[in-house]
């Protein structure tokens, strides 16, 4: 059970509500689809509203300054911002309130962008009314908000990295170099992941074996690093700073407490069963061609490569990103080593973004690799030694005899992603790749504090990208580790021990040891363990005596929000 480091006195009562409502134009993003002036006027007339203001961008420096100025000048003690999503902007507005001397939990967010201007883009009138009503509900809730003080808990100075491929190894070494303990868990017998089977790496043409070999040796020798192979995460509980993990390693159970977790489980290549006559002999995957090259066993005068095999097709819509460059790299290597070998690449689109990759594409064409574009509606037809491709540019069927056909199949989610996602309670996308907190602004964080991701577990990425992400994830994970403590949201249960009869139902329904029965002079009574309470509210909604108050989501606040619209015609 984590210890609470400090517990401050409850904040003073903010007094009778004086609510400020700030309505964001978001440029034209909101203001272009609703009558923003009417919304502001509506807000001004609501009970307890002392001040309203429209901002071009409430989240801009100017907007935040306007909030802070109004808090001081108008003596506001509650702030409502009607703009976008709490997922991205709640922390920002909360800290603006804090800077103006207002407890951040006296802030209420109303989302009139996602819920009004976006989903009702074509219904200006309805969207406007909905925005007015959402603000009305937000204001009703805001009037009842109470200040909360942060809870601070200690952080275990240890990280758990799941997956021992290039991403996991890189993240491990980066965190260990900062002076923290790291446990690296690999499911297979050896570290290395997918790179063990790769020949050379674009764009440097360096040996994949050398790179991963060097990294494996380095991580194994590294102080503070514990490498567990043939291992898997069995169980995890707790929260940022205090994850209790159980790992099974070669039949042994290991239990430990770690502060942060990095998911670096990678991906695997699709086996194209039933596609383009795949047989694993003369019709192989691009991955199997890598192995032939690596082992020096390639023997063919005519090689055809088909791109996007089982990728960017209905049911698996995404681009696997690494296949174009892998094909181009292998084509270059083959043509350089054996200029008499013909190489054809049948593609739908070539993705070689950036400077170095585009340069390789040009080089492959210089070396005489033939690139032929096909369309998904007329895919190449494969027989035992010949491909007939409908060349989009010529508008003709072109027969190409081959000795070896290489199918570029996409990276697909690692086996077992589902169990891991369940165990860690982190989401995956519709394809089964782990889903980051925000595609642009939090690319290596999960929405859950203290859990990070990198490499192909997130989506197909090449070595350079995986390493960048691993270093980024390591840096992000090092933040709570180096702070040594984290702030936990003070959204927790509060027990009124005078009403509590000690029935213990709260303890039964709690999944976190967040509340327990304790002996008091008045007999057994429930008591919240603030550092482990996650604030889900299950105990509060169950308590027979209604003796549990959920801070920031009290019965009163929620019920006020529900009945705020009575009398308004919905």
């Amino acid at each position, binding site marked *: 059970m984590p210890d609470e480091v400090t517990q401050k006195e409850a904040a003073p009562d903010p007094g009778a509500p004086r609510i400020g409502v700030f309505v964001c134009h*978001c*440029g*034209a*993003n909101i203001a272009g689809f609703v009558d923003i002036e009417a919304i502001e006027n509506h807000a001004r007339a609501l009970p307890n509203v002392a001040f309203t203001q429209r901002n071009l*961008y409430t*989240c*801009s420096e100017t907007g935040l300054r306007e909030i802070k100025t109004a808090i001081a000048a108008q003596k506001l003690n509650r702030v409502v911002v009607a703009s*976008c999503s709490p997922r*991205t902007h709640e922390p920002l507005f909360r800290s603006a309130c804090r800077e103006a001397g207002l407890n951040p939990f006296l802030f209420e967010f109303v989302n009139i962008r996602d819920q009004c201007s*976006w989903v009702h883009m074509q219904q200006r009138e309805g969207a406007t009314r909905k925005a007015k009503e959402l603000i009305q509900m937000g204001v009703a809730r805001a009037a009842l908000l109470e200040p909360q003080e942060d809870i601070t808990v200690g952080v275990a100075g240890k990280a758990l990295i799941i997956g021992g491929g290039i991403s996991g190894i890189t993240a491990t070494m980066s965190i260990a170099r900062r002076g923290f303990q790291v446990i690296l868990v690999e499911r297979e017998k050896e570290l290395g992941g997918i790179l063990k089977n790769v020949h050379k790496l674009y764009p440097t043409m360096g040996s994949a074996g050398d790179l991963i070999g060097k990294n494996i040796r380095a991580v194994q020798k590294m102080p503070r690093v514990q490498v567990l192979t043939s291992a898997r995460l069995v169980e995890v509980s707790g929260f940022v700073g205090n994850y209790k993990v159980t790992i099974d390693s070669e039949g042994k159970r290991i239990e430990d407490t770690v502060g942060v977790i990095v998911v670096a489980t990678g991906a695997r290549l699709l086996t194209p069963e039933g596609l383009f006559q795949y047989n694993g002999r003369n019709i192989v995957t691009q991955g199997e061609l890598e192995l032939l090259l690596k082992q020096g066993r390639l023997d063919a005068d005519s090689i055809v490569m088909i791109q996007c095999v089982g990728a960017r097709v209905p049911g698996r819509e995404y681009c696997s990103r690494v296949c174009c460059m892998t094909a181009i790299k292998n084509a270059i290597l083959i043509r350089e080593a054996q200029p008499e070998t013909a190489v054809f690449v049948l593609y739908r689109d070539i993705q070689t973004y950036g400077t170095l990759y585009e340069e390789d594409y040009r080089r492959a064409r210089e070396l005489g690799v033939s690139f032929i574009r096909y369309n998904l509606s007329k895919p190449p037809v494969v027989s035992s030694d010949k491909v007939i491709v409908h060349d989009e540019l010529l508008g003709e069927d072109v027969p190409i005899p081959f000795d070896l056909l290489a199918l570029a199949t996409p990276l697909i989610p690692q086996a077992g992603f589902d169990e891991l996602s369940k165990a860690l309670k982190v989401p995956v996308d519709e394809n089964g790749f782990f889903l980051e907190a*925000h*595609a*642009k*602004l939090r690319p290596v964080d999960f929405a859950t504090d203290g859990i990070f991701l990198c490499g192909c577990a997130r989506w197909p990425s090449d070595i350079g990208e995986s390493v960048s992400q691993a270093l980024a994830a390591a*840096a*992000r994970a*090092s*933040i709570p580790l*180096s*702070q040594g403590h984290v702030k936990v949201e003070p959204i927790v249960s509060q027990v009124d021990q005078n009403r509590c009869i000690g029935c213990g139902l709260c303890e039964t329904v709690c999944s976190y040891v967040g509340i327990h029965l304790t002996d008091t002079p008045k007999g057994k009574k429930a008591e919240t363990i603030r550092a482990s309470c996650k604030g889900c509210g299950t105990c509060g909604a169950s308590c027979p005596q209604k003796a549990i108050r959920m801070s920031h989501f009290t019965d009163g606040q929620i019920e006020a929000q529900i009945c705020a619209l009575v009398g308004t015609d919905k």
Partner: protein
Amino acid sequence: MKTDVVVIGGGIAGIQAGLDLAEMEMNVVLVEKKPSLGGKMSQLDKVYPTNDCAL
């Protein structure tokens, strides 16, 4: 104040690096050529694929 790290460039990359370093208890100086921070991103309206407002 002793400066641990100087970050050159106040666009999204520089700002994020500065923030993360500061959270790791480093003293950071963020240097930007222009009169305001934000770089290219502050000139954008929305960013794909989430369609969030770039500000």
